[in-house]
């Protein structure tokens, strides 16, 4: 499990995780999926700790379990790298700075909430956050949508989300069932083919 343990001891690895996530934390504007490009860049591109494909899997699991996506991803990456200690280090690091910032903001709220500069800056940042979220989806496309079945699952999920008011977790559940179904059909076809060849 601890692929890099030959290079670092667990404590050193925890420190590295802590530093990485404490650096990411204050930049997670918009929360949730807007944070994905930042985490990808630090964990897979820069540090090379986790392969892009495994990162997509971690994203899928983090989205399917309760709690903030960012915190869940930090927890899974931490656990993957350094077990329970890594999990605690990563979650602490990703929560602490935003809690501090929010605490200071709560105190300053009455004074600065109606500052025209802040409001203008926020109005500019809002479309950029939408761009960050869109980029998170685009980034997954290359690795995820590689088969016809994956395209169909993607299209079906989009339709469910747009036209029904199903809970997102139910949509992820449907994806899970679809994945198993495709796997079963492929396996059955492979069995039929070998049986057919044996008959000849």
């Amino acid at each position: 499990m601890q692929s890099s343990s030959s290079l670092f001891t667990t404590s050193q690895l925890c420190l590295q995780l802590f530093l990485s996530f404490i650096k990411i934390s204050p930049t997670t504007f918009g929360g949730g999926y807007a944070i994905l490009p930042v985490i990808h860049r630090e964990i897979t591109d820069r540090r090379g700790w986790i392969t892009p494909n495994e990162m997509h899997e971690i994203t899928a699991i983090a989205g399917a379990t309760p709690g903030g996506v960012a915190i869940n991803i930090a927890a899974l990456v931490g656990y993957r790298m350094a077990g329970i200690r890594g999990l605690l280090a990563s979650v602490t690091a990703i929560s602490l700075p935003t809690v501090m910032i929010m605490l200071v903001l709560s105190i300053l709220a009455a004074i600065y909430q109606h500052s025209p500069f802040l409001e203008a800056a926020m109005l500019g940042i809002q479309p950029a956050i939408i761009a960050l979220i869109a980029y998170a989806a685009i980034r997954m496309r290359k690795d995820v949508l590689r088969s016809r079945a994956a395209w169909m699952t993607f299209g079906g999920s989009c339709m469910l989300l747009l036209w029904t008011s199903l809970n997102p977790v139910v949509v992820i559940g449907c994806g899970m069932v679809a994945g198993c179904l495709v796997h079963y059909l492929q396996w059955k076809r492979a069995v039929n083919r070998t049986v057919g060849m044996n008959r000849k």
Partner: protein
Amino acid sequence: MIWDLFWTFFKLGFVSFGGGYAMIPLIEHEVLQHNWMSATEFTDAVTLAGMAPGSVAMNSAVYVGYAASGWIGSTAASIGIVLPSIILMFLVATLFYRMYHNHWVQAALDGMKPAVMALIAYAAFNMAMHSGLLNGYARYTWFSVVIFAVMLFALIRWKLHPIAVILISGIAGIILYV
């Protein structure tokens, strides 16, 4: 009071599927029931929580905790909302990495990944529709579309750092709107 804050957000943490704005109605219900804030105060709190870095749900917890009983309340509420994540992710992670190479788990993941991708795309779409940025042909509609397009291009083509994206668009906002 402190224990109440912790316990309320601890319970909310377990049911917060999807995180973010999906949780706001649940938090509002609890806040009004416990009389921690008024409904208008809570709306202001959510706006501020959305503007600050970090998850909306967690920031709301910090603000509600502060309004209810100062920084100790904030600490109790934020520990309360984070603890369920830690417990659940620990369970999921131990289970997941034990079954990681099972071919059924892999098949389920193969189906989940495109579904989550659709969820992310939908989150972007939803935010664009509900942010009020696309209402009519106001001046800021055009500016917003331009900022969105330029930033998306910069991310894909030049691999611009996300922090730079936030900073540049914030400065652009100040130049365009003040």
